[in-house]
C-alpha cells in the first residue's frame, strides 16, 4: 500500500501509523458523556469511501486525512489533518 503523503510524496504504508475514521469530531466539554461515548466508541465503519487518519510516523510526522475505498483500498486523496497545513 502506498500513501500519497502531501509533504513526502507516495510512501509505503509501513512508514505510517493508522488511527481510523476521521469523521467523528471531538465534542465540546459540556456536550456530556453520551456525546463523548459516541465519539470514542461508535463508528460508521463504511464499506466504501472512508476518510481516515494516518500519521507519517517514520516521515514528516504529519497527521493526514486520507480518502480511501475500504472495499478496493483505492486512495483518492490525502491532505494534512490540521487546518493550517501543519
Amino acid at each position: 500500500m502506498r500513501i500519497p503523503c502531501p509533504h513526502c510524496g507516495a510512501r509505503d504504508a509501513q512508514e505510517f501509523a493508522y488511527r481510523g475514521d476521521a469523521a467523528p469530531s471531538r465534542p465540546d466539554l459540556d456536550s456530556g458523556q453520551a456525546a463523548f461515548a459516541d465519539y470514542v466508541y461508535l463508528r460508521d465503519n463504511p464499506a466504501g469511501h472512508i476518510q481516515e487518519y494516518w500519521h507519517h510516523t517514520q516521515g514528516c510526522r504529519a497527521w493526514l486525512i486520507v480518502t480511501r475505498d475500504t472495499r478496493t483500498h483505492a486512495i483518492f486523496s490525502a491532505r494534512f489533518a490540521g487546518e493550517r497545513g501543519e
Partner: protein
Amino acid sequence: MSEFRLPSGGAIDRTKPLRFSFDGVDYEGFAGDTLASALIANGKHFVARSFKYHRPRGILSAGPEEPSALITLAHGEHEEPNALATTTWLRNGLTARSQNNWPSLDLDLMAINGWFAPFFAAGFYYKTFMWPGALWERLYEPLIRRAAGLGKLNAQPDERCYDSAHVFCDLLVIGAGPAGLACALAAARAGLRVLLIEQDRALGGRLLSENHVIDGAASATWLERIEAELASLPSVTILRDTTLFAAYDHGAFAALERIEDGYAQQRLWRIVAKRTVLATGAHERPIVFGGNDAPGVMLASAVETYASRFAARAGDAITVFTTTDSGWRAAQNIANSGARIVAVIDPRMDASFDRAALCDAMGAKLFSGAHIAGVRGKKRVRAIDIVDRSGSRHVLRTDIIAVSGGWNPAIGIGCHLGARPIWSDAIHSFVLPSDAAHVSPIGAAAGHFSLTNALMDGANAANLAAEALGKTNTPPVIFTADQENVSVTPLWRVKDSNSKAFVDLQNDVTDFDISLAAREGFTSVEHLKRYTTLGMGVDQGKTSNVNGFALLAEASGKDIAEAGTILARPPYAPVAIGAFAGMHRDEHFRPTRFTPSHEWAEERGAVFVDAGEWKRAQWYPIEGESDWLQSVTREASAVRSAVGICDVSTLGKIEVQGPDAGALLDFVYVNRMSNLQPGRVRYGLMLREDGFALDDGSVARFSDQHFFITTTTANAARVMQHLDFCRQVLRPDLDVSTASATEQWAQYSVAGPKSRALLQRLLPTLNISNAVFPHMSALMTQWRGIPLRLYRLSFSGELAYEIAAPAHYGDALMRALFECGAEFGVTPYGTEALGVLRIEKGHAAGNEFSGQTTAHDLGFGRLLSLKRDYIGRVMAERAALTDPMRLRLVGLRPVDPQMRLTSGAHLLPIGAAPSASVDDGYVTSVAFSPSLSHWIALALVRNGPNRLGERLRFYDPVRGGNGEVELCAPVFVDPTGERVRG
C-alpha cells in the same frame, strides 16, 4: 551419453557435463538441464509417490505448474523438501531424493492405501474416527498425520541467506515470452523504465521450444536480436530466475529471485510499477482418462520442450492424445527433433488442416474421433487401450502419452486484488475480467494463443502505457509472425475409463471424487475445493482446477460459466518463508538500541535486559555476589545510604515550544501545567480519551515558551504520536511545536543522601542548595563547554537529581560523575534496583499502567482537574471508572516476613475456596525491600484503599505460591517524604 539424449540440438551445453544423483543413483546431465530434463534424458520417469494412494508418479510438465515431480534436495544435513524437479536447474553434485514413500520409491508399503482406495473416497475422514473420542489424539490423528504431508523438513535452522531489494519502474512486464518481449522492447524504445521479470533462466517462453518465423527471420534469431537490444538499453532491467508471486495495492508487487552463485540464495523484490502487463502465458491442461497418472503420461508441450530445448527424448514410442491444434504442432516438433511418434489420437472428427498427411510425414498412426480408455503399466506406461470412432478397442504399445487438452491462461496474479475470472467459450477456459485494472493481460495470458496476436498485444500494451505516461514521441513498433491454428475442442473426461481417472494428480482427486462431492451437496466450487482438496497442492491446481470445475458443472447440471472458478490467492508459486524474513531473524530480528552509557556499563560488568528495543543495565554484579538479588539489594541500599547512579536515558523526552505550549500541555495532562513556574518541575498524568490512564512523567518548564516533558520508556513513541495528534488535529488553533529529544539527551538519575555533594563536586560553581534549587526544580547550565540540564526530582524517594547532557557526551558525563562520586561511595544501579526503590515508595509504573487502570485506581483521583477540558476528562468521570469497588492500588506485606511474594499472584479472602467469584485482585509488582528486610508488593485490590490492615490469601497456583499478606498503604519508606526534600 545418456540413452535418451538426442545426438544434437537443444539449448544445453554439451561441453559442460554435470554429475548428479537421484535416490542414491548417479546420473549425468549437462549445463542448461533442469533436474527433470536430466532425469528424462536418463530414461527416469518414475520419480515420486502420490499424496494419498502413494501411486507411482512421473514428470507431467516442464515448468512451475508441475503437480507430480516433487523431490527433496539435500545439501549435507540441510534438506529442502517439495522442490520441483521441473524448475530445479541442474548443478554439479546435486543430490535429490524421492519423498513420501517407505521404505523406498520402488517398493512403497504405504501403497497399501491404494487397496483401500474405495474407503478413502473424498471426505471419508469427516465420517469416522469419532469413537471413542480419546483415541483421536492418541491413535487416529497420529496415523493420519504420519501418512499425510509430502516432504520432511528437518529441525535444522535454515542456513540460507535471503536478500531483499526494492525497485521502481514505469512498466512492469511479467513474463518474457514473445508477448512480454515485444512489450518490453516497444516500451523501452518509447523511453519507459521497464522491469522485465522472467521465471525461467532464459528469455523467450515458448520460442525456446518452438520454431517460428518472426519479421521474416527464424524465431531463434529474432530472440537473439531482441535480447541484445534489451540488454543494450539502460532503462531496462531484466530479472531472470525470478517469479513474480503477488500483486498488492497501488502498483506494488513482490517477486522472488533464485540466485545460483551468491552469498544469498534468494532475493525478495518489492516492486512499485506505474503500469503492469501480464504476459505469463498459459498452462496446458491434461485430459482426464483412466490411468492418466502413470509415469509416462506427460503434457504434449512438455514432451516437446524436453525434446527441442533440452534434447531429451521422453521415450521410444510416443503417442500424442490431443484435442487441440497445438498438440499437432507439438507432435511435428517432437518428431522433427528426432523422437518417434507412433500415433496421434484426436477425439475431434476433423480439423482445419490435413491431419492424415501430417501423420504420414511423421510415420505415425492417426486415430481420429478416438480416445484413450485405459493405460497399461503401473510404474511406467507400457501400452494403451484406444477406443476408435466406431467404438472398437485397440491396444497400442507406447511408453509416452503426450496429452493436450487445451490451454488455461496463467492469470493468477490478475486475481490477487479480487478480480473474478470469467469463462470464455472461445478458448474454453477462464480469462481475466476487464476490471482487473492493476494488470493488463496480453498474449496467451489474455487467451490470445497465436504468436501473431501475442506480438501484436505486446506492442499495443507498450504503446498504451507510453501514452498513459506521456511518452508518445516514438512510432509504434509492429512485429509480424507466421499464422498458426489454435482451435480447441475440450474433452473434459473420458467416460468409459477402465480405471481411476485423476483430475488433481498431487492430491489424488479423481473424477469419481468430484461426482461424489457433488452428490453430497458440495456443489459450489469453493465447497468442492475444500471437501476434495482439489487444487490445494503446491501447484495450486494450475493443471487441475479447470478440469475439476468442468466436471463439477457436469455433475451438478450447471454450465461451467455458472459454476465459476475460485480466486487465486498469493503467492502465485510457493515462496520460502525465510525469504520474507530476510535479515530479520535470530539476533537481528529487531534492531537493538544502546544507551549513551552502554560501553561504560559493559566495562562495569553490567547484566543487560531488553526494554523494548533497548538494552538497559539490569544490575551490576561485583566480586563475590552469587545471585541477582544480592547485587540488586546492595545497589538499592547504596542509594538509600549514600548515592547511586542509574541511566534513565531511555525515557521518552519531548521539547514543547511556543506561546501555547502551556495550553497544549493543559490539554493532554489531567493536571494543569500552564501555571508551572519557569525553573520548576511537576509530575504529570495523561489519560486516553476513553478515560483510562495512558502514561505519566515529569514536566519541566525552562522558560515562558519552553517546556520539556518525559514519558515512560515503553510509551515514548505512542505519546509523541498522541501529542502530534492533539496539536495537529484537535488543537490546530494552538501555536506550539513539539520535537522528540529522546535520542538527544543522555539522562542519569543521581539518587541518595549524598547526591547533592556529588553534583556539587561536578559543578562547583553552581548553587544547588536546597534553598535555591529545591525539590521539583530544573535548570540549564554548561559543563566543560557543553550544555547540561539538571532536574531535581526523585523516583526513589531519596534526595535525587536527574542530570542530562547531549548523548554523544553521555559517556564522558557518566565517567565524570563516577570520578566525582568516588569519595561518596557512588554505586551504579540498574533497572532492578530502580524498581525496588520505586516500589518501596509506591510509585506506579508499567505494571500498574496496564491500560486497564484509571487515575482513581492508581490513587491519582485528586489530580483530575474539574475546571477544564483535557483528553479523557469526560469519559474518566463515568461511574464505572470511579467506582471505589474497582481494583485499586495498595501495598502488601507478607504476614510471615520470610515469605517471598511474586507478581501475578491473585488475592482471595482467607478461608474461602479458591474461585473467580471471590477473587479480590492481584499483585502487580514485588520487591525485596532492603529497608524492611522482607518482600513487599504493590497490588490492585477490590476497594483496596478502604481495606488497609485487612489480611488476604496470597494465591499463585501456577507457581505454587501460597500464604497470607496484609494490605497497607503503598508507601513503605519515608511516608512523610522528608528525605526527598532534604
